[in-house]
């Protein structure tokens, strides 16, 4: 083998000096715009079992699962299969007041949706403010649904009862800083319905560290935030066997400007910090790691690099769990993520927006090459404003169906395995990401790297570098910084099918929700709420106490989200970002 490789190396040099050189001279080029990879370009040779392995087996480079019955035909499923009799959470959605979101889910059900709620909360809820707070003014029900008290969750979940009750339906909550409060509300809802906790299926996003680096819906400083994370990890591991602990999201960091390697290294460092919390709490890693999930990673149009990125990500997470955390259960080592490659919302353009459909299809093809469902995300009207139109959703779903059923892209798992180029790229990305990961470990891990502002500054710097490249024309986005001549047609699009959420209700939502909140507060036992909040404060002052049972009592007495957060603000303080 070694001799063969040496021969290939020599031949490649000869090819460069003779055949390639002649072509460069013909085109008057100093260097070749294309690369060619030969077996000799895989640095340490290539060991299939060590570097790739079989799908669903360590190191999971080829895929998380041995096989996968993709269901791209199913409405709103996101192309993810589910076990019979269970309903997976579907498309990210949440509008206005709780009634609006309930009605939206009922409407989508009429349109054929068979998925659970994947709830978007409005910014006041995500940042720990009630709808009547001056901080919430103008933002109630805008980017998601407003939830102030348990009453609001009761209303939303009126859309999920009977045959799709919450013991059969999985719910996702895109909530981070107040994740434990929302989970307490969900448990209280189950209790009221007579459903035992261990039947609940849910995924709170509960990935607070990335909020400091991107997205910005933090409340408390990083250390007390990690205590809240520990509480959820311990509580969920003990009492909620079918609930995921976290859904770690590298893609937010990428959207905020991170490079591919930063995205991977920062996400893994954040994941490692969460794992360490569980270990520090005295749990065996295999007792909780199988309930770690990932939201999404990546987000760029660079086809092969993103394919390699996902292969590297799976391998790195597996190695981290096995080698650094000593996991024995293979499930602990799997990187479970619903979306693999996608073009990145940042790269979708307002200009000639139908081009985003092309971009999402490129992402869908790459996704299938990277061991995922051929999801074509996001719907093309993503950059036109909040809320995808039904026709953009239809085209997005159809695109995935075409990739599966007509192009038959999912007949083979990891079809690029063994490609000299893709294997070498996978190694390069992994190696660069480990270097950055180790740098963060030397700083004291993800929490320290966030407290010092390192991750935030690096991401901002990378975002600015990308912008400079775009302005200098070193990176091109069609219709944005190139191909803008007079002969180009500015294709715009009219969204003819109205969004199921009536925009008038959105404008009314703030007023409506403030009234509901007032009514809920009038009906509750104020004295009881006051006492429970005092108990919460005492408990919060003791680092070792798990706050979730206390939050559950507060929630059941209809304490508001902000009342609970304010108590915790008093004890934990509020996060103030490091300077740029």
């Amino acid at each position, binding site marked *: 083998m070694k001799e063969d490789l040496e021969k290939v190396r020599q031949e490649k040099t000869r090819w460069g000096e003779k055949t390639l050189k002649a072509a460069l001279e013909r085109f008057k080029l100093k260097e070749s715009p294309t690369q060619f990879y030969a077996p000799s370009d895989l640095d340490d040779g290539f060991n299939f079992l060590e570097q790739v392995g079989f799908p669903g087996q360590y190191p999971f480079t080829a895929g998380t699962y041995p096989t996968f019955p993709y269901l791209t035909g199913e409405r709103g499923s996101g192309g993810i299969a589910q076990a019979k009799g269970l309903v997976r959470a579907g498309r990210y959605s949440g509008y206005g007041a709780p009634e609006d979101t309930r009605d939206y889910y009922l409407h989508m059900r009429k349109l054929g949706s068979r998925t659970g709620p994947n709830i978007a909360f409005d*910014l*006041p809820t*995500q*940042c720990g*403010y009630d709808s009547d707070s*001056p*901080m*919430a*003014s*103008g*933002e109630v029900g*805008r*980017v998601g649904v407003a939830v102030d008290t348990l009453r609001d969750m009761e209303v939303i979940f009126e859309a999920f009862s009977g045959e799709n009750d919450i013991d059969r339906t999985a719910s996702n909550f895109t909530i981070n800083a107040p994740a434990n409060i929302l989970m307490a509300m969900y448990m209280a809802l189950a209790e009221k319905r007579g459903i035992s906790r261990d039947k609940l299926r849910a995924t709170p996003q509960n990935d607070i560290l990335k*909020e400091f680096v*991107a*997205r*910005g*819906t933090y409340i408390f400083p990083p250390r007390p935030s990690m205590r809240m994370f520990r509480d959820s990890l311990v509580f969920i591991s003990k009492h909620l066997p079918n609930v995921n602990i976290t859904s770690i999201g590298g893609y937010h960091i990428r*959207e*905020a*400007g991170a490079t591919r390697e930063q995205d991977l290294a920062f996400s893994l460092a954040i994941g490692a910090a969460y794992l360490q919390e569980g270990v520090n709490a005295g749990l065996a890693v295999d007792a909780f790691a199988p309930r770690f999930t990932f939201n999404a990673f990546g987000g760029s149009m660079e086809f092969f690099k993103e394919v390699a990125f996902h292969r590297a990500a799976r391998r790195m997470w597996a190695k981290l769990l096995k080698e650094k955390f000593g996991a024995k259960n293979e499930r602990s080592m799997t990187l479970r993520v619903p979306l693999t490659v996608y073009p990145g919302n*940042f790269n979708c*353009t*307002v*200009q000639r927006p139908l081009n985003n459909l092309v971009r999402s299809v490129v992402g869908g093809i790459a996704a299938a090459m990277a061991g995922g469902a051929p999801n074509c995300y996001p719907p093309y009207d993503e*950059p*036109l*404003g*909040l809320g995808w139109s039904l026709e953009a959703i239809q085209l997005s779903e159809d695109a995935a169906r075409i990739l599966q059923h007509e192009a038959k892209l999912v007949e083979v798992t990891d079809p690029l395995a063994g490609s000299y180029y893709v294997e070498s790229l996978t190694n390069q990305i992994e190696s660069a990401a480990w270097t950055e990961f180790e740098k963060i470990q030397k700083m004291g891990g993800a929490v320290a790297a966030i407290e010092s502002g390192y991750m935030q500054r690096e991401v*901002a710097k990378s*975002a*600015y570098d990308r*912008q400079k490249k*775009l*302005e200098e024309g070193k990176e091109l*986005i069609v219709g*944005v*910084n190139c191909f803008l001549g007079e002969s180009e047609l500015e294709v715009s699009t009219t969204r003819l099918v109205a969004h199921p959420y009536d925009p008038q209700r959105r404008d009314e939502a703030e007023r409506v929700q403030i009234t509901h909140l007032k009514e809920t507060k009038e009906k509750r036992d104020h004295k009881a709420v006051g006492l429970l909040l005092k108990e919460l404060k005492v408990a919060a002052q003791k680092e070792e106490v798990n706050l979730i049972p206390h939050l559950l009592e507060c929630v059941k007495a209809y304490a508001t989200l902000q009342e609970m957060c304010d108590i915790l603000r008093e004890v934990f303080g509020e996060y103030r*970002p490091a300077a*740029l």
Partner: protein
Amino acid sequence: MNQGKKIRVLVAKPGLDGHDRGAKVVAFGLRDAGFEVVYTGLRQTPEMIASAAIQEDVDVVGLSILSGAHLSLTQRVLQNLRAKGAGDKMVLVGGIISPADAGKLKEMGVAEVFIPGTSIKSIADFIKSKFTG
């Protein structure tokens, strides 16, 4: 404006929206284009932004909003600036803003609206044209 001095710009994030890639990139870019730039960071109320604009004696207030709450937040920033006697400051808005809403913002008194895909150069050129023209 401050004669002979650099044009001073406040880049601000009103409301609870945490998407600050655009705000940071514009802050860096305008600084490199020769402006004095102050960046407020996240979660600024309209009152805080108006006070900062006066305290920092800026010529331009740039608001970055991607949460869909741009009409109400911008209105309140403008009201606060006028109430504090600083209604003459140029206000710019950047974010995901439909053409219809951009029209409404301009009626309120916003000088220009910049959507995703805008180059920093064009923002810098716009500001300079208003102060040197």
